[in-house]
């Protein structure tokens, strides 16, 4: 990937993405204020390394996936709302979509029922003009950002996996993959049990 693209992204990140992410975090925090069982809200601009790695992706025929990564990558800013329980994900997603307009909604689950890995609810939503500081032109801001809603356990697993296992899965040994899957299964199980306890102890 060219140094030119890296320099362009560094400038965009510093001048636009970081300030917009800060405002976005404030905005989401304001929206969820008073909502129950929200652990935290965060928003951040994609790191330079992650951007360059994503920009360099190619399709199965080797053709670059993004002709203009700065414009085409829709998660240059990612925001997360971490909720306590699995049961909170759908209501919180619905609540947030009262304020944000989605062009994509995905429930991410592993490919097969026999696998364990990342679980989460992701939306690609329009960046609201409110989150663009007055000194930044609206056209300069990204059109969309990724809004994730996760449980505490999904978040914990994902963060640790990102820290330790952020490399193509092919480079991990079979045992390492199995142990990552095991931790994912533990997080999945904890979410399930908390969900059951919630239904038993606080039936609505």
């Amino acid at each position, binding site marked *: 990937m060219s140094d030119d693209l890296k320099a362009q992204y560094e400038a965009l990140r510093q001048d636009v993405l970081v300030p917009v992410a800060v405002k976005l975090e404030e905005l989401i925090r304001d929206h969820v204020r008073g909502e129950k069982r929200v652990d935290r809200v965060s928003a951040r601009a994609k790191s330079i390394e992650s951007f360059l790695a994503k920009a360099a992706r190619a399709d199965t025929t080797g053709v670059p996936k993004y002709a203009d990564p700065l414009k085409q990558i829709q998660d240059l800013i990612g925001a997360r709302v971490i909720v306590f329980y699995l049961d909170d994900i759908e209501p919180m997603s619905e609540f947030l979509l009262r304020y944000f307009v989605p062009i994509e909604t995905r429930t991410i689950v592993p490919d097969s029922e026999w696998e364990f890995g990342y679980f989460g609810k992701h939306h690609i939503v329009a960046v609201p003009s*409110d989150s663009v500081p007055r000194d930044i032109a609206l056209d300069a801001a990204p059109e969309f950002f990724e809004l994730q809603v996760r449980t505490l356990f999904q978040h914990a697993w994902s963060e640790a996996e990102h820290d330790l296992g952020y490399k193509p899965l092919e480079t991990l040994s079979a045992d390492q993959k199995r142990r990552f899957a095991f931790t994912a299964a533990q997080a999945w199980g904890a979410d399930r049990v908390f969900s059951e306890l919630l239904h038993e102890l606080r039936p609505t």
Partner: protein
Amino acid sequence: MCSNCGQHNDLIVPFGSRVHGRCQYRMGDVPHVRILPVNVTLVPLLAGTTLRSVRGFVKWHVMEACRSATIASVWSRNSLHSECTLGYAARRARLARSVLRAMIRHIHSYLVYPAKGEDAQPEISGTDVPLDGKLFDMLKRLYDEAETDCNIPIVFRATEEGKQENPRRTQILTYLRRSTLVRGQELAQELQSVTTNRSGLGLFFLIAGQESKQHHRIVLSRFPADEGIVANESRTTLKVEFIERIFMKSARAYKSATFKGASLDSGFWKGRAVDKQISGTVELSQYWIDEFLLAQIETTAAAGTKRLAQAVRKAIKETPDPEVKTKLVAASGLLGNLGGQHVSPESIVQSFSLPPAAAEAIRTALPRPESYVETFQFDSVEYERELPFRAVELDNGAHLFADNKRFDEVFHSEPLDGETGKVRYTTEGKVVRQNLAKRP
């Protein structure tokens, strides 16, 4: 060196263009962006070529004013010989029109009948609109003004399964890739299939243009049919005649939408729209944005209402003028009745006849100036969630506190004669609770 074919390094590639003219044709790029040969033997071809910047888009145009320009004159900004400049002024208007025309590539028009829910859809007739003449001039204005006319940011909807796909966006991109009468007809058919008798017959225009080398833009517009009278006056007589099927673009009688993007392979998810067919209000007919465009207003009801409520609260707090404060407070109590209506801060200021100082206070309190004219559907529930209570503090230490919407019912106020700024508040009721609090 042309990045498309890699040949002809004897070509000048001006201002970032990296492909031959002929390659641009093949790539579907703007045909009139030329790559000019340096060879002085081709001077006649270059004669009078002038550099113009139209809305930031650098274009090259061959003028007929001069047939003997040199290379030096071609590359200078002042590209005409001094003797040729005399003819320049006369040709300027024509040149300006040709430059403007260059931005619009195709215009197609279709007669669209109301046929919502009909199994057999009427056949749609369409035509290619020439890029010249008075009709073109009118449509050119429509195209140029679309981005300011269309003051409602919209976003194409995802599929019901949440996929990033939208059939209308796909049709628009298909049309932009190759703007033909047939491809445009597909869009006209979609419009017809959602048009009700209430909306009636309409003339649908598709205007495809190019903002810059890489920026494509489309304007979709529907003019409703009307009836009228034509008056022809001669020296001694006046002849009047009734005519049907007049299609007019009046300030209150058309719908329009515009989308632009850098690439036809991505982007084009956001656009802007306007619907002025319903006289006197900013009301949006569901059929244009929701049913035809398969889009939604970018500012959701909750987000727009919350933003407005916060701006009103901030304006009340920060305005130094007590009269403005009073007017804003009074308006805030009435805003809750706007539930379901399409409003913008600007339309609210107008409908409540708020003074310019109050308008300015709201505008300043909004997170961005653009928000002042942005339309959204007012959400009463969100409004009450954001501004549930009104508090009034008097200089005698009293604090009055009540539901914002009902404050003026609960407390009756009357100004005291002769006492500047003094008021008497009265209320009646049974005491249901008393408590101590840190702050009201």
